[in-house]
């Protein structure tokens, strides 16, 4: 296992370097730069030009890249031009929001998926199975952003049960109970909206696993031995069916990335997705590059976690 991990990290390094070059080139190809937005006739163009010079924006790309990567290795991802603060500090401010949002979504996803998947798999071809399957079909077809928009409008504005923007009520002291509760309250609607849609893949997966395992020999054996039906489900089937679900945990994390971008944008929730958008619009390249890299690393780690869990569960699957 230790060897595998080392090898995986060995592959990771060139991947990340390649990714960083790709993103860097992309950034350089975009029309305009961080100073384009600062059109101001009262500022002498020569001053702007000297700022460009100072920021190294006029150097050839490989020199800029070299400057950047050598610093990045030492943990200095540069300065956000717009926010005028180190990129890492800026991301630090935002990332916790996104992490909390993802976590809440993940928990809700499983809270919804497990009972529905079990019911549907255990009693397949009954009415409740059909209802649940119907829901998964609908959830699969419904665009997340439309659903989220309607949720915001209905529960945020029409009924007014939930706050409609931000991540916390202004003025609360961080660390206090009220602060934590307010954070959770702000998370609830966006996370639920997202979980209701993203959960359907897991429900479907769980259902088909259960149906599959139900017909395996060892279940028949258990039944023949006289084990009670609930014992069979709880001890044998469920345990086996949940394993692949656990294995997809890592991928689930990667999948959340796409979703949070929509959710943050719709619920005005200040997280990484929002930061990414504004960094593209304002050509705040250092921020943009760092975010993409970070997400790249996250998806590598997600895949690694999944593979490791899978390897633990099923020794036949060797990860290369």
């Amino acid at each position, binding site marked *: 296992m230790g060897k595998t991990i080392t090898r995986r990290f060995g*592959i990771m390094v060139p*991947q990340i370097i*390649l*990714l960083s070059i*790709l*993103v860097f080139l*992309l*950034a350089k*190809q*975009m*029309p305009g730069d961080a100073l384009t937005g600062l059109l101001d006739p009262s500022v002498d163009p020569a001053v702007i030009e000297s700022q460009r010079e100072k920021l190294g924006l006029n150097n050839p790309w490989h020199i800029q890249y070299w400057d950047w990567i050598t610093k990045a290795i030492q943990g200095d991802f540069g300065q956000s031009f717009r926010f005028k603060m180190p990129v890492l500090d800026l991301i630090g401010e935002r990332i916790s929001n996104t992490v909390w949002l993802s976590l809440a979504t993940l928990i809700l996803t499983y809270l919804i998926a497990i009972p529905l998947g079990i019911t549907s798999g255990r009693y397949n071809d009954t009415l409740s199975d059909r209802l649940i399957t119907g829901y998964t*079909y*609908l*959830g*699969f*077809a*419904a*665009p*997340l*952003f*439309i*659903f989220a*928009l309607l949720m915001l*409008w209905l529960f945020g504005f029409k009924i007014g049960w939930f706050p409609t923007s931000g991540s916390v009520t202004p003025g609360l002291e961080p660390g206090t109970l009220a602060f934590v509760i307010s954070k959770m309250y702000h998370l609830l609607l966006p996370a639920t909206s997202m979980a209701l*849609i*993203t959960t359907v*893949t897991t429900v479907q*997966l769980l259902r*088909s696993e259960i149906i*599959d395992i139900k017909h395996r020999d060892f279940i028949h054996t258990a039944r023949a031995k006289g084990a009670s039906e609930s014992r069979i489900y709880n001890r044998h089937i469920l345990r086996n069916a949940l394993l*692949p679900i656990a294995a*997809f945990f890592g*991928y689930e994390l*990667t*999948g959340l*990335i*796409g*979703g949070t*971008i*929509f959710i943050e*944008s719709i619920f005005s929730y200040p997280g990484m997705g929002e930061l*990414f*958008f504004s960094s*593209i619009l304002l050509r705040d390249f250092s921020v*943009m590059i760092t*975010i*993409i890299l970070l*997400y*790249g690393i996250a*998806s*590598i780690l997600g*895949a690694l976690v*999944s593979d490791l869990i899978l390897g633990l569960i099923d020794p036949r699957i060797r990860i290369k």
Partner: protein
Amino acid sequence: MIHPPPNDIPLLQNEAFAARSPSSLTILWREIVRDKIALVSLVFIVIVTAFVYITSLVLDQEQIVRVDLFALNKAPSAEHWLGTDYGGRDIFGQLIIGTRNSLTIAFLVTMLTGIIGISIGVISGYFGGMIDNFFMRVVDFFLILPFLMIVIAFIAVVPKYSIYSFTLIMTAFLWMGIARLIRSKALQERELDYIKASRTVGTSHAGIIFKHVLPNLSSIIIVSMTLNLAANIGLESGLSFLGFGFPEDTPSLGTLVSYARNAQTLESRPWIWLPASSLILVLMLSINNVGQALKRAADARQRRG
């Protein structure tokens, strides 16, 4: 909704049935005919597709995107069946052309990713060794890219992008799922005796790939491309919603839906966004129904009779 580009999850799901998968396309067809819902869905898809492509030949496109200052945000009427948008443009016409554009892009992306994915998958699965190793490293690299972000960054780079550049950008980052799927199947295929046999009789690699390997994989290819089609429609509308999809003067389902971002439109002018949203929902539902039926057909254990 935006599902992650179909990669590992469907792959592993498919793993279970792959070994036993029948090769005949007739089984797929039979399964669809048996499954009434899937049949209805298929008929619906065909009708919608035929309708929008034929109608849009007749419609005067320039007239539809024409701005009419004196007909802004009009409710549905005899003149404008589904009302008009904030530019006084007819929603019904835009819906037709938009559906056509969205379908075109989804088809194009599905076909292109299919061709690239299948080629790479078959080649690396069939030949194995160094070739396989190389392609799989490439696939691994593409898989770690955060799809939405990279696509958005690319779209920001292309100064004047069109349906075609949009298609190419999407394709560039969506071919890996199918490549991996096909590769793993091809890997299993090549170990089968008859392949080895025909190799010893001297059949060329190309001959084996086209005569034996691909036909055996056809049902899997069809299933995964059908599901990809639905996913691609969702992706297009999602990107348009975020403002990084179709160019503004090209109507699409996504751009029509994105009008709903304006709270005023969302609340009091449903005719602008509701038809497109419902159409996306129904289309994706139908394509998925067909896809699921095909999937069942490909999996002997779940076939209905």
